[in-house]
Every structure is written in C-alpha cells, then in structure tokens.
C-alpha cells in the first residue's frame, strides 16, 4: 500500500491520554478482528496480553528444550569420561551411577545456562532483534513513548487493514493525533 506521494505505508498509529484509554482501545481493536498490531507504553500494563487477545507464547517450549539439552549435555560429558572412558577413583567413591551426587551441581548449572541461552536467543528471534531502525520512529511524537505517552499501531500488512477502517476504529476508540506511518 502506498500513499499518493509514493511512500510505502507501514501502518496507522494513534496516541492515547492514559494507560486505561489504551487498554480500552486495545480491546476494541482486538474485537474488530485485527491480527497485526501492537501497543506501546512506558511501562508494562497488567492484563494487556488478554486485552490484546495474545495467546500463550511458545517461548516456554523453547526454554524447556534448552533445559533438557543442558541436562543431557552435562550427563553425557560427566558420565562418559568418568564412568566409561577413563574411570578415576577419588576418595574411594564409586565410578558408576552412584557418583551422581558429585555430578548434580554441573547438571543443574548447565540446565540453567542452556535454558537462559534458549530464553535469550529465542526472545531475540521472536522480537526480530537486533534491529537498527523501525518505521515507527519516523513519527516524531513517538519519542515520548519511553516517558509519558501511550500508542497503538495497526500495521498495513494486516489483511483487514484499509486506511478508512483503521482511522475510524482509532478515532472511535478515543485515539488522538491519528497518523499514517511511512515505511522509510
């Protein structure tokens, strides 16, 4: 979608006076059936995920996979050498499965480490980061988002997006300074 001046359109944005107004607007946009849109606020708003109709994130599944692979890595790297390849008796302690108390700390730590890595990198991928620029920064007012302003942006790639419908919806939900955001 392009504006008459030939700019590619990223989406339609509006500013809201308070977190409560943004919360109500999010519910309206959700009920109107839009899928590709987002809200921006200086701080997290309790219950916003539900107001936006967001489902459970799949991040937890990735973290679980990371944790399990960390546990298995530690188990293989410890039992492999110490029980099979080069059994070394220390303190008269066994070298079979019953050495496991000595191995638990490493198993625990690698589980945590791999889970943390999985969480961190999956979060980066899910958010499309790292990223040097975003079209929404083309809007001057948006710089106040880290201070005292609340915004809602409907993206143009949403299948239901038309300029008129998006503008009407944002107006009805109490949005101010409604504007089109250019892609570049």
């Amino acid at each position: 979608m392009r504006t008459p001046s030939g700019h590619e359109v990223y989406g339609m944005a509006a500013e809201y006076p308070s977190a409560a107004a943004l919360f109500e607007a999010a519910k309206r946009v959700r009920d109107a059936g839009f899928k590709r849109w987002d809200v921006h606020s200086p701080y997290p708003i309790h219950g916003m995920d539900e107001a936006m109709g967001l489902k459970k994130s799949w991040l937890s599944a990735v973290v679980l996979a990371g944790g399990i692979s960390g546990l298995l890595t530690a188990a293989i790297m410890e039992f492999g050498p110490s029980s099979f390849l080069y059994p070394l008796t220390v303190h008269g302690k066994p070298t079979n499965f019953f050495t496991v108390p000595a191995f638990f700390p490493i198993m625990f730590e690698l589980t945590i480490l791999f889970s943390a890595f999985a969480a961190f990198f999956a979060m980066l991928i899910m958010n499309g980061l790292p990223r040097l620029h975003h079209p929404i920064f083309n809007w001057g007012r948006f710089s106040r988002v880290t201070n005292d302003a609340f915004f809602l942006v409907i993206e143009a790639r949403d299948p239901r997006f038309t300029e008129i419908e998006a503008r009407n919806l944002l107006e009805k939900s109490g949005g101010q300074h409604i504007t089109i955001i250019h892609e570049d």
Partner: protein
Amino acid sequence: MSDRSQALPTPEGEYFESNRFAGLSVLLGLVALVALALSIAGAMIDPHQFSFSWLFAFAFFFTLCAGCLFWTIVHHATDAEWSVVVRRQLENIASLAVVLAVFFVPILMLRHHLYEWMNIPPGQEASLDSKRPYLNWNFFLARTIFYLGFFILASFFLRRLSIRQDKDGNPRCTLMMRKVAFIALPLFALSLSFGAFDWLMGLNYRWFSTMFGVYIFAGTAGSSMSLLVLVISALRSAGYLKEVVTLEHYHIMGKWMFAFCVFWAYIGFGQYMLIWYANMPEETQYFLTRNTESWWILSMLLVIGRFFGPFAILLLRSIKKQPHRLCYVAGWIVFMQMLDMYIVILPALHGTGMHLSIWDFVSLIAIGATLGFVYLRIVAKASLFPVRDPRLIESLKLTN
C-alpha cells in the same frame, strides 16, 4: 489497568456455619478422645517406641502449623496483595500452636527415651562434654518454652488484630500487624531453626548439620502452602469462598508449591552432597542409617516423590489453574512431608531398618483429630476472609 480500577462492591463477610458440620465435629472429637486415651496406654505399655511415634506426629503437624504462621508473617512484612483472601485460614491454622504446645508436654515427660544426651552423665563422652554449654536440660527447657511461646504469641496477635479490623476496617490494624510481622520474621527463623536443632537433630547428639534448620523450613513452607490449598478447596466445596478465591489465587498458590518443591530439593541435596563429599564419620552416620536396609527405599521414595514427581507436574501451567488436580498434588506433598518427618525421626530408634508401629498411627490420629476438632471451632468464630482489609478489593481482582 482500567479493569482493576472499576468499582467492585465490597463483599459481605462469609461465616462458617458450625452447626452444618456438627456431625463432623462430634466425630473428630470422639476419634480424638479415643486416640488420646490409646496414646496414654501406649505411653504406659511401650514408652520407648511411643515417644518416637509421638515426636514424629508432633513434628509433622507442628511444621504444617508453623508454615502457616510463616506465610502470614510474610504476607504482612511484604504488604502482599494476593494473599488477603486466603489469609484468615492461614491465621486459623497458625493459632493451633496453642494446642501443639500442650502436645509437647508428653515429649518433655518422655525425654529420657528420646534424647540420649540427657542420660549420659558429664565426663563420660568427650564429644558430648564439649557441647554441654548448649545441650543441658535447663537451657533446653528454656529454649523450648521460648520457641513455643513465640509461635503462640505471634499467631495470637496476628489473628486478633486481623479480626479486630473486620469490625471497623481501621487501617491502623494493618500497620500494627506489619510491625508485629517485622519483629516476628527473624524470631520465626531462629525459633524454627533452633527448634529443629533441639527437637530433631538432638536425637543423635553426635551428628550435626548447619543446614538442618533450613532443610526443615523448606519442607515446612512448601507443605503448609499445600495444606492451604487443601483447606481452601474444602471450604469451597462446602460452598464458601466461591466468589472470593479465584483461579488466579490457585495459580499463585501452585507457583509457591512449585517454588518450595525446588527449594526443598536444593537444600536437601546441598546438605546431602556436602556430607557425602567430605566423608566425615560424625556426619555420614546420619545418611548411612537412612540409606541402608529398608530405609533406603523410603529415602528414594522421598527424593522422587517430594521433588521429581511434583516438579514435573507443577511445571505445567494448566495444573496450577485446575483446583481439582492441584488438590491431588497438594495432598501428595503433605503426605511427603509426613514421610520426610518419619525419615528424620524414626531411624534414630530403628537404626537397622524400617519398623512400623501401631503407635505411629495412634499418635498421628490423636494429634490430627484434635487439631481438626479445634480448627472447626476456631474457623466459625470470624469471617472466612478479612472483610475490611484495605487491600481486599485488589486481592479479589487479582490477575497474574
């Protein structure tokens, strides 16, 4: 945000109608009377076995009640919001400490069967003589009175102030309870840790573990949160608290059960591994006894049943949001706490293997039924949740 700022009518208090459950109360009272009479018989017939059985039952119920006092204190000290609606039940269970203090008297009377160090005259055991400044009868009695006195007074004041607030909604009560909580928090840590040292670790005066107090605390906090889930669910199935306690509260209680399941394993394993690694005879004897003969089976059941099982189940979010299923896990964790206390106490008597005794069950039933009977009296005395707490509305609208 806006969801939470909408006005919600302040609910009227809900009152437990004790006459609806008069039958249960009478039944519990009768069972308690019979079991207490049998206990007296047990103390006459087989005082040695009975003293350990009674200490086991006492420790199990005491940790559950002390844990509820812990959650009440933490609620006030952190100015918590979510736990307002369940706090009255925590206060009710914590104030059972009075009854438990009475049940400590048999332990004092049978002390010579339980605590070997009380029977050894000075000058015979060098390892004991060096501990005499701490392990002597006068100091032991003074400490015990201090611990029990603390649990009674703290639970009494917190419950009384909370009920006083039900009448007038005076926010000053909240501030006073917070002050009580700040004083009670360090005293709780000391009383529970040293209580564990004196009453449980003292069963074998040669053994020592600095982590033992924390270990008992970890089991205490997790199992009392599980008990709270059971009590709240029982009240809900009786038709109370339906509009007050929501799935969100269950979700948080489930999270706490999960957290303390992990914490218990962390502390329990930490204690085990340090002793296993250092390999010092005074320390390893504790685990040697518990890892040989039939005790090994129970120890393995504890490791799997108290940690691995609940860990895997409570990891799922959906379980924590289904009260019915969460109750099964909570009941299991309370049962595991019982097993934990059994493994801590009974091997001091039966060092060569597990030996179930009828007095174990009689003691459990005697103390349990009495506490249940008293609880049914206490619970009817005040509203089932703090009606005029300043944070009640926020707690009702909890989301997490």
